[in-house]
């Protein structure tokens, strides 16, 4: 199997065609706009976090390539119900995985289905596509009103 077909796994293609939690969230407690100036990917992530720091709801809107859309979609599915602290750990593991600095096949992790994005590490130009919504999620938790960019 070539790297490309590893990159575009069926689940990723499916989440690209039918992104989950693809909606605005008027009552969001946190949100952040993420922009990749190199390719124009433009994603906003919304979070509804309760007083116990649990993510009750998470959604996204925007436009981008298949990798950034599927990554956003799978992120929302994965983070719903997680605590903020857990989300930060997952971000860290995911980010390091796509950079090729963390191998989920060899280490215990909290990534679940997100390991589908492991193929991204073979495509340096696509790392930012996969991590854009994750950076936006962290930006939202840190209340970055100005938004984040990958550059």
């Amino acid at each position, binding site marked *: 199997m*070539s790297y*490309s077909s590893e990159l*575009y796994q069926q689940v990723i293609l499916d989440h690209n065609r039918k992104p989950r939690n693809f909606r605005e969230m008027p009552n969001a407690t946190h949100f952040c706009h993420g922009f990749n100036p190199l*390719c124009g990917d433009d994603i906003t992530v919304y979070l509804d976090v309760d007083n116990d720091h649990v993510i009750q709801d998470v959604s996204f809107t925007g436009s981008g390539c298949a990798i950034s859309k599927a990554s956003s979609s799978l992120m929302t599915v994965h983070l719903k119900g997680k605590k903020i602290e857990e989300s930060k750990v997952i971000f860290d593991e995911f980010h390091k995985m796509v950079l090729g600095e963390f191998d989920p096949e060899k280490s215990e992790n909290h990534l679940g289905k997100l390991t589908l994005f492991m193929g991204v590490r073979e495509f340096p130009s*696509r790392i930012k596509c996969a991590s854009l919504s994750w950076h936006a999620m962290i930006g939202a938790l840190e209340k970055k009103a100005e938004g984040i960019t990958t550059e």
Partner: protein
Amino acid sequence: MPDSGAVLAKKPAIDVDKIRKDFPVLSRTIDGKPLIYLDNAATTQKPWSVINRLFKFESEEYGTVRRGAYKLSERSTRLYEESRRKVADFLGAASKEEIVFTSGTTQSINLVAYSFGRRFVNAGDEVVISNIEHHANTVPWQVLCEEKGAVLKVIPVNDDGELIMTEYDKLLSKKTRLVAVNHVSNALGTVNPVREIVRKARAVGAKVLIDGAQSTPHMKIDVRELDCDFYTFSGHKMYGPSGVGGLYGKMEVLETMPPYVTGGDMIVQVTLEKTTYAKPPSRFEAGTPPISQVIGLGTAIDYLNGVGMDKIGEYEHSLLEYGTRLLRDIPGLRIIGTARDKASIISFYLDAAHPHDVVTILDQDGIALRGGHHCAQPTMKRFGVPATARASMSFYNKYEELDALAASIRRTIKIFS
């Protein structure tokens, strides 16, 4: 537009199989598949003659220029100046002193913006660009206008990606100091009516810069016939080395301009109180230049002249017609940039897949092309797309490679639908 059969039936202007033997990289494979290189608007591959020239120069002849009184340096200087002569002849300049070597088009435009712009553009003056410029011919003017309190005006384009010349007429006035437009749009392939642009700018007393980064590889240029004040180019887009390019400037205009970068080589005399500047082009070439790159550029021009710019233009036009025909027939594919006069660039957008996904799948088939905004975000915005995929053809490309491109695009659509 003739059908693809008619294009094929005509005897090609170029023996492409023979040409391809001159470019070693074209015979390599990518993951077991023959390389199909269609990113020529970004950078072009080098023929053996350039590669060998660089090797010979670096291994046998290298020395500094314009200073040493020993054999190596004298020979280097002569070769360096011979390249300047070749560039001047290639562009139709009146003298070789009108050619300033720079690192490429970006630096050439910045040179004009900083040197000419800061001296001659004042508060309330106007600079005119177009909606289909590369960022390199947009940002320097924005910065200049902001700094000087001048106004940046933009020539709009129609849905085919052609400049709307009646709107251009309205933008011109006695306040216009400079018009800066590209000869060929890197994002769309549009060939702009530069002669008319220059003539109209002249009528209001404005100077004109033509960004020739995308035109110099494809067509015969004659700066004197164009009557422009500045013309810029990049070596690596015309089969030469990267890191070198240049600026043509009319001598009478260059002479009025202050230095842009200062230091060694651009002076007549330096005392601790005052410096007298050298004449152009030395005035604008401070520091040790990219010597081997300049010499390699001269060899690239020899190569282009050997093939013939007219033949190159004719053959690339047939590739454009053939490729346009093939891609137009693909459902869900929209060609961005459908000007009547185009260079061999086809920008396209698929309903089914983002340009970045397109190029990743095409790469799997050994096809190299660019997906992105092509450093032309205002152009992308004008056409309502975040980015495009862009196939840019050279005279070393074959019809069969465009067949492969079309097949690969169809495969991409299937994957993402």
